[in-house]
């Protein structure tokens, strides 16, 4: 059985459906079979080795099923404002309660609920700002990820960062 050691190497354009992988123990021109032993990653389709270096490394053009359509179609946002609030509030309560006494930022922002809230995208930003107005919690990385802006870049404390984000939200009519 062939052995593959896969290492993801995204192509020059992130959105391209074809990704390049570093593959060892392969010869140029070989076809990657779905039943080969894979050390990292998974084989999802047949692919052919395009190049092989003297060191035995090769690159394979790899077709992922998720990316067969190019570009990935943009879906309309699936939730109404009320539905966003209905999803957001329990997640926010859970995150605030379970991280209230934590001190390490990676543990606080690594909480599963935090990721889920970021996944709600821009429609959840006004809801975060509402909460930030009531209590200064480290929502800042989520807000930056959701808006691609960072009005608190120069802030030296959580209070200053909260103030900067609330001013940002007021200028946009997102929070009172």
């Amino acid at each position, binding site marked *: 059985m062939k052995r593959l050691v896969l290492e993801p190497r995204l192509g020059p354009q992130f959105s391209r459906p074809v990704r390049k992988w570093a593959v060892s123990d392969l010869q140029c021109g070989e076809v990657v079979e779905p039943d080969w032993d894979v050390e990292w990653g998974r084989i999802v389709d047949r692919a052919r080795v395009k190049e092989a270096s003297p060191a035995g490394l090769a690159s394979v053009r790899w077709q992922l099923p998720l990316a067969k359509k190019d570009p990935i179609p943009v879906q309309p946002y699936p939730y109404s404002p009320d539905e966003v609030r209905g999803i957001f509030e329990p997640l926010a309560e859970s995150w605030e309660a379970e991280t209230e*006494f934590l001190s390490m930022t990676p543990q606080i922002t690594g909480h599963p609920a935090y990721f889920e809230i970021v996944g709600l995208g821009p429609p959840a930003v006004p809801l975060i700002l509402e909460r930030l107005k009531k209590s200064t919690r480290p929502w800042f990385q989520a807000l930056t990820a959701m808006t691609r802006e960072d009005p608190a870049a120069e802030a030296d404390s959580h209070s200053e960062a909260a103030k900067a984000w609330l001013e940002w939200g007021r200028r946009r009519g997102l929070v009172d």
Partner: protein
Amino acid sequence: MARVGTKARIGRLTVQERIETQIPGLRQGAYRITSPEDPDYNCVAWGLRDTAHWWSPRPGGTNHWPTDVPAWPSLTAFVEVFEQEGYSICDEAAYEEGVEKIAIFTYPSEEPAHVARQLKGGKWTSKLGGSVDIEHDELRMVACGLYGDVRVLMCRARAPEAERPTIQLLS
């Protein structure tokens, strides 16, 4: 969803009830809340007597961390931070006159989770995230799932005390 609902109910408890729910070891001895909630500093800062910054090894944002210490949540990095402030590793948590001690708590993975500082007289003080400071009789009272266990003790010559006055319990 059931789990979220259960945890969400914690938000309706008083701060003291929330503390004891998440750090049950505090029910095993005496402790008191010694500050109002303050989101601007954390336990690492409190260990260093800094009440203006949130010390955490994550680059950018409002996190404060020495530029010459790896911005990675490792025990080694935390020890280095405290060494820069004059601490060195020691063995005993017992109170010694003229010596200030801190304890670094870690999870089993050795990822740091908490820092407590010994007060003059032998009690300990902990800042609980962005919430309140507490004073607790024993170091082990805050050792539990939330903060892991004491992994490293560090000592330095004690600076003059400037502790905060006691306040009423917050609810």
